[in-house]
């Protein structure tokens, strides 16, 4: 039992930390590619300086993302060997495809990009960044297909005591994977947009490099606005899909106890897991949850009481992570819409700029909350409906896992502190003079 909890904790530490860096890699690569292409098209040197400045931050972020990703790939074997043996036929092949079809390209080209400024034509150099962005997104595709399979296993049969692949296309193209991809990548793009807008706001508040950071801000603003809107729309589809595929997660994240129709959505509630009810329910929107989950106010929504006690996810964590995430999602849309109207007079809007500066951490928080909901909300299952997390861990000594858990916390803590310090320092110093 100790090994299970230590392994879960270690996986949480490793994943949360890894995902502090992944989104910025996904989104900033696209933004840098846009800047470099703008340089190629217009010949304006400022776009080149922008690509180089944001590129410096990108490279630090990229390296930490890479090295912490490797441990994740191997942790399935070290800490979740029973899971690996059970699902390797499907899950393992998806990870292997990610490495061969996407991650190779990304990692090979990052060196070419970082060291190749004087060796490639402007156009070729910009193309390299587009390829890095494409390969990163393709990496995300395969990883999220793998995660989607854990959330909603399809295209398999149980044979030889394990899940064996029967329909590859069903695994790859299932709706859950498509939605999860749009959701996660949009979140990554929002995070990157807010990062660029926040850092730009810092300099605009000080009225330094005004043209440079106004341009950066505006490119990021469009990006952020578009994907915040996409996220809100997709989030709705995602929730409706969950009602069908993971009713336990939906009930937990909405703190919905009694199976019923015409279910309201409370803007403020507080679940009480022990007594299977909510201690607080305020500001109901009549029929809203039925409408969101089942496209009609008359739709029936399964409540937690109809889900066996040992198949319910932790309600409070699911509920809080979901509602905070959604709140943040609406905030991102709202504030980028405000930004759209202020885009031509940014330096005259110090209050707005300050909000954007302090908003940098919020998409990070939203991303981690999203993964908390996805993974904690799936419990007690590691593969929904197929295998419980408690059956999945490796038969290793608790002392071994305890030791590596401490090492993870220490090493990642240090790494994160140093990495973010350098990223912040480069961001604060601003671009090299023209």
């Amino acid at each position, binding site marked *: 039992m100790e090994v299970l909890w230590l392994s879960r904790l270690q996986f949480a530490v490793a994943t949360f930390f890894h995902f502090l860096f992944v989104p910025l890699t996904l989104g900033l690569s696209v933004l840098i590619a846009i800047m470099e292409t703008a340089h190629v098209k217009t010949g304006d040197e400022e776009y080149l300086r922008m690509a180089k400045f944001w590129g410096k931050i990108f*490279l*630090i972020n990229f*390296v930490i993302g*890479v*090295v912490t990703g*490797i*441990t994740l*790939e*191997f942790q*399935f*074997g*070290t*800490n979740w*060997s*029973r899971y*690996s*043996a059970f699902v*390797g*036929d*499907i*899950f*393992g*092949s998806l*990870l*292997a*495809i*990610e*490495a*061969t*079809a996407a*991650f*190779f*390209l990304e*990692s*090979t*080209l*990052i*060196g*070419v990009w*970082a*060291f*190749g*400024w004087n*060796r*490639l034509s402007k156009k070729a150099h910009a193309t390299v960044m587009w390829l890095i962005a494409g390969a990163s997104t393709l990496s995300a595709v395969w990883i999220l297909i793998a995660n989607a399979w854990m959330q909603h296993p399809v295209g398999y049969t149980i044979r030889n005591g*394990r899940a*064996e*692949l*029967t329909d*590859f296309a069903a695994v790859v193209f299932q709706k859950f994977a498509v939605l999860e991809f749009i959701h996660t990548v949009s979140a990554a793009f929002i995070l990157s947009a807010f990062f660029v807008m926040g850092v730009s706001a810092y300099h605009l508040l000080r009225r330094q490099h005004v043209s440079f950071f106004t341009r950066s801000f505006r490119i990021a603003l469009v990006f952020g606005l578009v994907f915040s809107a996409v996220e809100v729309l997709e989030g709705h589809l995602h929730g409706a899909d969950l009602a069908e595929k993971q009713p336990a997660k939906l009930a937990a994240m909405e703190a919905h106890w009694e199976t019923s129709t015409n279910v309201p959505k409370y803007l403020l509630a507080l679940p009480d897991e022990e007594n299977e009810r909510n201690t607080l329910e305020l500001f109901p929107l009549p029929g809203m949850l039925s409408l969101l989950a089942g496209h009609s106010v008359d739709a029936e929504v399964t409540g937690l009481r109809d889900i066996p006690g040992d198949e319910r996810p932790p309600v409070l964590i699911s509920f809080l992570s979901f509602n905070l995430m959604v709140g943040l999602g609406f905030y991102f849309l709202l504030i980028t819409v405000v930004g759209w109207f202020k885009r031509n007079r940014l330096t005259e809007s110090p209050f707005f700029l300050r909000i954007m500066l302090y908003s940098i951490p919020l998409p990070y928080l939203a991303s981690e909350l999203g993964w908390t909901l996805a993974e904690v909300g799936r419990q007690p299952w590691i593969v929904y409906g197929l295998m419980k997390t408690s059956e999945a861990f*490796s*038969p*290793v000594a608790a002392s*071994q896992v305890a030791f*590596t858990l401490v*090492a993870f916390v220490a*090493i990642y803590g240090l*790494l994160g502190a*140093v990495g973010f310090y*350098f990223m912040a320092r480069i961001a604060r110093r601003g671009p090299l003079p023209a």
Partner: protein
Amino acid sequence: MVLQTIWFFLWGLLWAVYFMTDGFDLGLGSLLPFVARDEKDRRAVYRAMGPIWDGNEVWLIAAGGVTFAAFPTVYAVMFSSLYSPLMLILFALILRGVSFEFRSQVESAAWRRMWDAGTFVGSFLPAVLFGVAFANIFQGIPFDGNGVYRGSLLTLLNPYGLLGGLLFLLLFLEHGALWLAVKTDGPLHDRAVSTAKTLWPAVLVAAVLFLGASAAATDLYANYLGQPLLSLVILAAVAGLLGIRFFLRSGAAWKAWIASSLAIGSATFYGVIGLFPAVFPSSLDPAYSLTAHNASSSPLTLKIMLGVTLAFVPVVLAYQTWAYMLFRDTVHGEEEPDVHY
């Protein structure tokens, strides 16, 4: 059956390519404190690896991923049995990666020395531990019929395992010295060449000892006795080792590096061929051993993965070769504004 056999050798090939590519990064990182005399030298060493180490490291991820995809039971039992050494390798590789990136962020000698130490430890440890791990796999690992490891932390540090660690370290050091010789000119180049020459007899002795010890400690030779033609791979490894010395004498550093790649690739295959059909043998009872036949994925998955591998690995090789060619010229350690590091 045929699919499983193909996958067995593809699995070996991915590990071989990882050792042939990242092997020189690991070796060069371990040599850093010894071949580089000043900051200029050290910058040159970093730049010799800078644009390509990350791409090289992905071969490890591919090897791990393919183990998971083609032999899930092996992936599960191998990585949980080798829990501590594998974690140590991963922590070391993290340290190496960030050391490259962090050292140039602050203009301070003490700061750089700290991350140079990180580069050294992060390169040295994996070089040795990969050798220890693979020698132990050749020998068999004490795990039972349920895939539960029955040894202790020290089980792996037996004489044969340690000899494997020493051999890998020496091979990688030689490989790294040769890569530095290829990538540099002037005094640093000369020092790289003389390091390679000094290390060479030690590599040879370790290799001969390992070939001999394998007869006593492992069953690797059973396949070779059954099919003597397979011994060509041993000859290839020896030819590679001799080639290093030959080309070093004639001053053709890059040919010596190719010979060294041949030696490392053949040495990996020497073990892989000897293991066949076992991927992860048990030392407790041969019946527990995980083989290409009893531990593989379903035929459908093996087929799909074969298609993916045959389609993408040549493409990967093509663009990695392009990247190597793009950075084929010699590196120098002068401060340059537009050069990363």
